């Protein structure tokens, strides 16, 4: 084999090194691998590409995709097309950040540690909670881990989930709880929101937690304070899953009794990336500090009298407590959390609120225009933030398909999640959508009816 740009050893180096080891060939270094489990021959993989060829090939693959920028994108449902300031990627592109490992050696990891501490603080500020950890894989796994944590804290086996939670999140909770002696109960909806009466009937002394998403999967805002009250009356924890952008205008869950607040952090400075990598944020009340899953960073002092940051409360984690750890999570989504951190700092107090208000105003403008169209109506009446469900006069799949030719991604058809909602389209309007794009969508929908 010729030389390779990622492999610095020369033939001369290899000879010298083999000699220093006291063997004669590379094969000698693999003599411990039994003959019967050795791979014979060459892997059946495409041959190596030069950098030039690689770039050409990758551009071809990328070019075989349409992007949300080629369309007016009204798709949401857990992944959102928000504006990302250029400073975010400028910071993320620094090799000192992205080529570092988990900050196990704090003396040479203060950059990572301090940014996570800042991130934790920002999440606390958004949610009005006491503490936050360094990140989970995504919103769905954060919610699943919150449910598991609630069962440990309360020593109760029953998890009650509102059916208005993102169906993929509910699936993840079902997967995560397999093999544990836990009971999952879903409570149905009434007008697109969790059925409060049914909820009240269901919550009991065996209930570890009530899981609520608000804004929920259909875009509607749930009655958080009421659900919290129902949970607390039975001694259960109240877990809220939320869209962080919505907290620019909405009352934070910490102000209406949430014990744990989680959510998908992607809207905070992370691109859509076909579904990942994203990050789950996870915040809680202080009393649950030692039950939290994953990493937490704390401020402390060094032996020179300087302020510094370290990984704290590590005895909760898998590398120390092993089978008794609060979670098995090790690698998390640190760089995505850094993106969220830079994003929130770039937006700042005013800008962040402005983003949320733009979403709110534009979504309501769009909803009003669409619901004024013959044959189209809002499926549900309740208050919403940036997403709403439209009932169409034809299958939503068809709507999306027809509007593609007009360079519009009209929304997410709900039939894929709920067969009885074939005509329902979940429409999302972020700050990136212009009035012109919204009007264009409305005109084209009108043409379908």
């Amino acid at each position, binding site marked *: 084999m010729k030389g390779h740009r990622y492999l610095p050893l020369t033939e001369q180096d290899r000879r010298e090194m083999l000699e220093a080891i006291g063997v004669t060939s590379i094969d000698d270094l693999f003599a411990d691998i039994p003959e019967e489990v050795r791979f014979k021959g060459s892997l059946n993989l495409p041959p190596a590409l030069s950098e030039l060829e690689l770039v050409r090939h990758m551009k071809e693959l990328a070019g075989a995709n349409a992007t949300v920028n080629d369309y007016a994108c009204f798709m949401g449902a857990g992944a959102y097309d928000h504006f990302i300031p250029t400073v975010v990627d400028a910071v993320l592109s620094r090799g000192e950040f992205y080529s570092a490992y988990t900050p196990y050696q704090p003396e040479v990891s203060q950059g990572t540690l301090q940014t996570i501490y800042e991130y934790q603080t920002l999440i606390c500020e958004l949610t009005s909670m006491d503490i936050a950890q360094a990140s989970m894989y995504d919103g769905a796994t954060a919610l699943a881990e919150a449910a598991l944590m609630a069962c440990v804290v309360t020593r109760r086996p029953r998890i009650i989930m509102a059916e208005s939670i993102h169906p993929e999140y509910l699936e993840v909770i079902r997967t995560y709880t397999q093999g544990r002696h836990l009971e999952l109960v879903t409570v149905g909806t009434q007008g697109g929101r969790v059925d409060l009466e049914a909820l009240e009937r269901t919550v009991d002394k065996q209930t570890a937690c009530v899981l609520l998403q608000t804004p929920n999967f259909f875009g509607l805002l749930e009655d958080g304070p009421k659900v919290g009250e129902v949970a607390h009356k039975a001694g259960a924890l109240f877990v809220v899953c939320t869209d962080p952008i919505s907290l620019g205008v909405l009352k934070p869950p910490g102000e209406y009794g949430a014990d744990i607040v989680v959510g998908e952090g992607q809207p905070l400075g992370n691109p859509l990336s076909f579904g990942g990598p994203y990050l789950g944020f996870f915040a809680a009340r202080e009393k649950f500090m030692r039950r939290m899953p994953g990493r937490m960073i704390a401020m402390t002092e060094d032996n020179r009298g300087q302020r510094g940051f370290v990984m704290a409360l*590590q*005895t909760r984690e898998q590398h*120390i*407590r092993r089978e008794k750890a609060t979670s098995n999570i090790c690698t998390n989504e640190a760089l995505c959390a850094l993106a969220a951190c830079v994003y929130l700092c770039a937006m700042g107090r005013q800008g962040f609120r402005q983003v949320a208000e733009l979403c709110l105003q534009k979504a309501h403008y769009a909803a009003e225009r669409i619901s004024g169209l013959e044959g189209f109506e809002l499926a549900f009446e309740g208050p919403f933030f940036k997403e709403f469900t439209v009932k169409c006069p034809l299958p939503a799949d068809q709507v999306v398909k027809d509007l593609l030719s007009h360079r519009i991604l009209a929304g997410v058809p709900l039939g894929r999640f709920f067969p009885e909602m074939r005509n329902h389209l979940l429409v999302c309007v972020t700050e990136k959508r212009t009035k012109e794009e919204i009007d264009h969508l409305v005109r084209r929908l009108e043409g379908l009816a």
Partner: protein
Amino acid sequence: MTYPRDLRYTKDHEWIKAEDSRGRIGLTNYAQDQLGDIVFVELPEVGRELERGEVFGVVESVKAVSDCYSPASGKVVEVNEKLLDEPELINKDPHGEGWMIVIELSDPAELDQLMDAEAYEKHLEEQMQ
């Protein structure tokens, strides 16, 4: 070091001191030394019934964590709440102010099966080797 003669010891490095029908329980000096600076202590609720050998609490240092096993059976009648704010008491005075719980002994004879100070010291020596 020499260990207090009025205490009884377990192989897991807990001590118990007979106080009439009750037993005061803590971690030995050896245990606290092995753990290092203790940062957190978890104690049981008063009223809990403990079997001999059952986990009654957890002590944590920065990089280690250890379950504490009850040297005898009985009902928890007192816990050392001072430890919640000052876990370092276990490091400073393991056999005194660093006590963890007091139980009402269900069978005081159980204590006879534990090591006395001399036996415990010998046990430690063996463990070192």
